[in-house]
């Protein structure tokens, strides 16, 4: 992957997740962050730090991004995409909200 097409998400513990920019842009907030005019630190360095989000949660979030990218189009055609699993033990459910800014797609938690 080319450097320009990627962005680095850093968790509270310092884990670095390098993902496609396209995937990261699924989140409106990250999208605004990266496209805002003026020289915010994030845009310049190409990396976003989340000091309040733990590593496993951030990992799940990155998986969600890819899942969303892959199956949004399928959903538009009316097919049912595979269910995205959110393990409750991690308290993951709560993490979806601030990044998405909305009550994202209906995820059914399964054990």
């Amino acid at each position, binding site marked *: 992957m080319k450097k320009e097409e990627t962005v680095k998400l850093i968790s509270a513990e310092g884990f670095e997740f390098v993902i496609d920019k396209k995937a990261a842009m699924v989140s409106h907030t990250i999208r605004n962050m990266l496209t*805002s005019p*003026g020289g915010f630190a994030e845009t310049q360095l190409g990396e976003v730090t989340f000091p309040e989000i733990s590593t496993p949660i951030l990992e799940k979030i990155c998986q969600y991004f890819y899942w969303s990218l892959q199956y949004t189009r399928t959903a538009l055609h009316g097919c049912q995409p595979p269910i995205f699993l959110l393990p409750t033990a991690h308290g993951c459910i709560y*993490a979806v909200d601030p990044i998405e800014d909305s009550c994202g797609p209906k995820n059914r938690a399964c054990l």
Partner: protein
Amino acid sequence: MSAQKKRNFKIEAFKHRVEVDPKYAEKTWKILEHAIHEIYNHNASGLSFEELYRNAYNMVLHKYGEKLYSGLVTTMTWHLKEIAKSIEAAQGGLFLEELNRKWGDHNKALQMIRDILMYMDRTFVPSNRKTPVHELGLNLWRDNIIHSHKIQTRLLDTLLDLIHRERTGEVINRGLMRNITKMLMDLGSSVYQEDFERPFLEVSASFYSGESQQFIECCDCGDYLKKAERRLNEEMERVSHYLDAKSEAKITSVVEKEMIANHMQRLVHMENSGLVNMLVDDKYEDLSRMYNLFRRVPEGLSTIRDVMTSHLRETGKQLVSDPERLRDPVDFVQRLLDMKDKHDKIISIAFNNDKTFQNALNSSFEYFINLNNRSPEFISLYVDDKLRKGLKGVTEEDVEVVLDKVMMLFRYLQEKDVFEKYYKQHLAKRLLSGKTVSDDAERSMIVKLKTECGYQFTSKLEGMFTDMRTSQDTMQGFYASQYSETGDGPTLAVQVLTTGSWPTQPSAPCNLPAEILGVCEKFRAYYLGTHTGRRLTWQTNMGTADIKATFGKGQKHELNVSTYQMCVLMLFNSADRLSYKEIEQATEIPAADLKRCLQSLACVKGKNVLRKEPMSKDIAEDDAFYFNDKFTSKFIKVKIGTVVAQKESEPEKHETRQRVEEDRKPQIEAAIVRIMKSRRVLDHNSIVTEVTTQLQSRFLPNPVVIKKRIESLIEREFLERDKADRKLYRYLA
């Protein structure tokens, strides 16, 4: 855990772990306030978006949204006031540039601020009915900068001054203007309209009012229109470059009003260069420009149309009343055709083939053609001239073109029945003398008349053609039959005319020479043998003859003469000298005709086969005539004075007119009876209107004549007057 399985999970907002700190809100706000300052000071590079976003998010979540919002308003306002000061301080030309630059900066800052305060914008703002951040930023800019009393007037004055300079020929920075007007539009269309557009339109109105006054004093019509067009295009171009598109209609209507609408009358009536001069001189470009400009203003086109109509009527009236013109009918009609052509061309090139102008042209022609009551006669003479010689050698399409043009004039005639009468006369003369240039052209004309006026109009004319054809067949039959003997008798060519179809002329007496009589009787016998129950009358005033004559030195000539002339000449076979009286007695030709006939034989240079004593031009009772032995001519065949269709003399004119009037009476009566039969009861005025409508394709009936006809019908018991109401009439079955 298993109990939780069945529950639907509620998605709640993520709560960061925060300390319970009484000063929490204040601290967080301070961070954000500092960030806003840095943004306005172009120092944003060090800031972390994520941190700021998180802080704003937390404030809203913990119910400090109001503090955040009002803090934002205060901070932004403070910054804007500072910016206002720096703009006010700018000198002269730099004022607009400074304003433009600061506006760009503000927009950028606004976007950054909105991005980090996104959460508030989406949750707190709508639920508390606050103005969203972006809109808030625009409103604050508007209130603190644009409407600051020092900047407001200065801005407007600068803009108007630049526009004025550009109008007087200077070059200005259009890009900068564009940005400024776009800024005003972004702030709201009411800002644009109130702070710029309305004063702009007022100033433009007074500018153009002054300029148009100046131009009209010193320019002629064509130049003025050029200038007006130029200004109009300029304004439209100005709008496209740096004003809002919606202003185009408004500014163009200002220019149209000031430069065109206010001066319309003066332009059109301008001496030496106004509309009439343009029409006369075929100034297509100027006329086209006038049309396009005047089209934009109310009453513009009707002004042009009215002036054109009155000009046409004047010119036409002069044309038809000018005694000089009336001498030559063919020329008269040609001039009418030329006038129509000229104006058709003007309408198609300059006036965009506008139908209303076509109609104005038609109504004007209709008006003045009918001012002269000889128009039908003259038009018929024109066609006669064309069909005799004018269309010689012309292609079929061109023939159609000429005839179509004549038909156009024919349509304008109100007295079409007069035309019919004359056309019949002229056609008869053409057919009988064999002088028509092309049979196809004749037929084409008949077809056109039929299309225009219906079968009735042309049935008699077609009858004339049929007679000619039938006569040819009859002649062939005659010569093939036993009745004709080959011998040295004269060869006879007879045309048998059906009385109803041909223009009636009373047949005058005429003593034919014996040789002729013989062969004529033979024909009569033949004809009556095949067609019983018919009566034949020789029309000696319409015939022609070819005579072989031998003159003094033995030179032989073949003379083509009329029947009357032939009778006179044959007398000289048995006498050398004859007096007028003797000739009159012998031939029994009526005096007027005889005089004309002798004149053409004796008094016309180059055609004088007879010699007259005395050598005067007029024929007197005691003149004597001699066979002119000394007659010479270059040609073997000499044609002597065939009667050409001329325009009628006064008495002839009266006679024709009277006949037309007589013919009209039964037509009017027939119309009245038709109407009353279907309506049963009708009042006087309605009858008059109905009759006029029914007959208008042929002629315009005189209401007095209609009244007389009604009275005549009452006498003859076709109608009766109502006993109660004198104005009402009743049909009697």
